[in-house]
C-alpha cells in the first residue's frame, strides 16, 4: 500500500505544548524555593462547544502553591485550541492587568492573546516578574516560616 502521509510526520512532534512550558516553569520555581513554593498547573474541566470564550479544548489554571501551607493562588488561566496557539490568558486582577499593560474589561481576553511560543513565554516572564507574583511568593515563604517555628 502506498503511504500517502507526509514524510516529516514522525513519532515526535518537535513542538512543546503551552502546558508543558507552564509545568517546566512551575518546577523551576520549586527549585528556587526548595519546593516550599511551586507553580502548579491544574487542568480546568470545562465543556467544549459552548461558544464561550473560556472553552477552548485545553484550559489550565496556573497556581502558585505553598506546599507546606496547603495553599494555592490562581495567578492566571490559559486556554488554547488543538493547534496550541493562540493561547488566551485570563487574568482577573485589575492591578496585575494594569501593571502588565493589559486592557481591562470586556475586551481583555482578546487583548491577552499569545500568537506563538515566543509571545507566550514573553507574557509568562512579565507575569512572573510582576509585583503581584513576587508579593504572593514572598507572603507564602514568610507564612511558611512562621508556621514551622
Amino acid at each position: 500500500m502506498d503511504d500517502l502521509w507526509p514524510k516529516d510526520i514522525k513519532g515526535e512532534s518537535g513542538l512543546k505544548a503551552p502546558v508543558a512550558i507552564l509545568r517546566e516553569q512551575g518546577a523551576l520555581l520549586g527549585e528556587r524555593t526548595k519546593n516550599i513554593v511551586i507553580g502548579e498547573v491544574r487542568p480546568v474541566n470545562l465543556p467544549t462547544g459552548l461558544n464561550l470564550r473560556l472553552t477552548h479544548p485545553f484550559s489550565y489554571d496556573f497556581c502558585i502553591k505553598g506546599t507546606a501551607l496547603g495553599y494555592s493562588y490562581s495567578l492566571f488561566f490559559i486556554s488554547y485550541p488543538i493547534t496550541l496557539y493562540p493561547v488566551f490568558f485570563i487574568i482577573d486582577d485589575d492591578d496585575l492587568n494594569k501593571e502588565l499593560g493589559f486592557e481591562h474589561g470586556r475586551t481583555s481576553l482578546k487583548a491577552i492573546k499569545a500568537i506563538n511560543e515566543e509571545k507566550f513565554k514573553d507574557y509568562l516572564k512579565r507575569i512572573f516578574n510582576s509585583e503581584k507574583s513576587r508579593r504572593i511568593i514572598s507572603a507564602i515563604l514568610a507564612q511558611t516560616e512562621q508556621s514551622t517555628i
Partner: protein
Amino acid sequence: MITFLFWNLDKKSLKSNIKNLAGNFDVDIFMFAECAISPDILLRTLNEDSVSYYYCPNIGCQKITIFTRFSSDLLKVKMETNRLTIRHLTLPGLRDILLAVMHFPDKSHWNDPSQTSECYRISDIIKKVEQEVSHSRTILVGDFNMNPFEHGLVSAIGFNAVMSRGTANKKNRTVQGEKYPFFYNPMWNYFGDETPGPPGTYYYNVSEHIGYFWNIFDQVLIRPELLPCIDKNFIQILDSDGTKSFLSSQGVPNSSIVSDHLPILFKLNL
C-alpha cells in the same frame, strides 16, 4: 450556632454601622467585599468596647476582607484567586467546613457569557478544594453580580444552585453522563414583597426595556451536606444595622449614606 455576615461595603467607611452590626446581631464572621477601610482601623473599631475580633488576612485575594471572633488559625486559607478566598473553618468540637467568599466581576465590565464562563471555572476550583479536604461541606457566599436565576448560577457545570431543599437533597444531577453536585440556593425565597425583609439586596433602576429594579446579587449557596445545619429562615437580608436604617425614604438602599448593597446575615448550627 455560628453567625455569618456578608456585605459589599461599596468602598464606604461604614465603621459605625459595622460596629452596630457586631453588637446587635452577634456576628462571629464578618466577610466584606469592596472594603476600603484599613483592617487595623476596622479592628480598632470592632474591638473598641471589648477585644473580640481578629483580622484574617488573605495571601493573594484582594477583593475580600474577613474578621472573626476566633483566631485566624481556625480559618486557614486554602485556595485563592484575586476575587475568591476559600477557607477551611475548623472550630474545636464542631464539624469542619469550607467557607468560600467571593466578589464576582460586575456587569459593567463582564458580559453575561463571560460571567457564566467564570462560574464554570470557580465551580471547578471549589470542587478541587473539596477533593483535597475529602468532604463537600461547603458554603459559597458573596456578591455574585448575578441573580439566582442566571445561567452561571443554575447551570449544571456552573454552580448548579437550585431553589429547593428537596432537589438539593438529591445531592447531584447527571447531564450527558457527567455528575454535577448541587448547591442549595435559599436566596430564591427572598425576592419580592412577601418576604420578611427588603425585596432584594441591590436596587438598580435602569433606563432599558428589561430591568428587575430589585436584584439579589448577594447570595449564600450551601452544599446538601450542610442542609441539616440550617433552619428554615436561617438567612436575613438586613435593612438596618439594628440601630440605623440602610434604606432611603423610598425604601431602597441609601447609597448616599451607606452601601448600595444590603448585607446578608445567616446562621449555621455546625
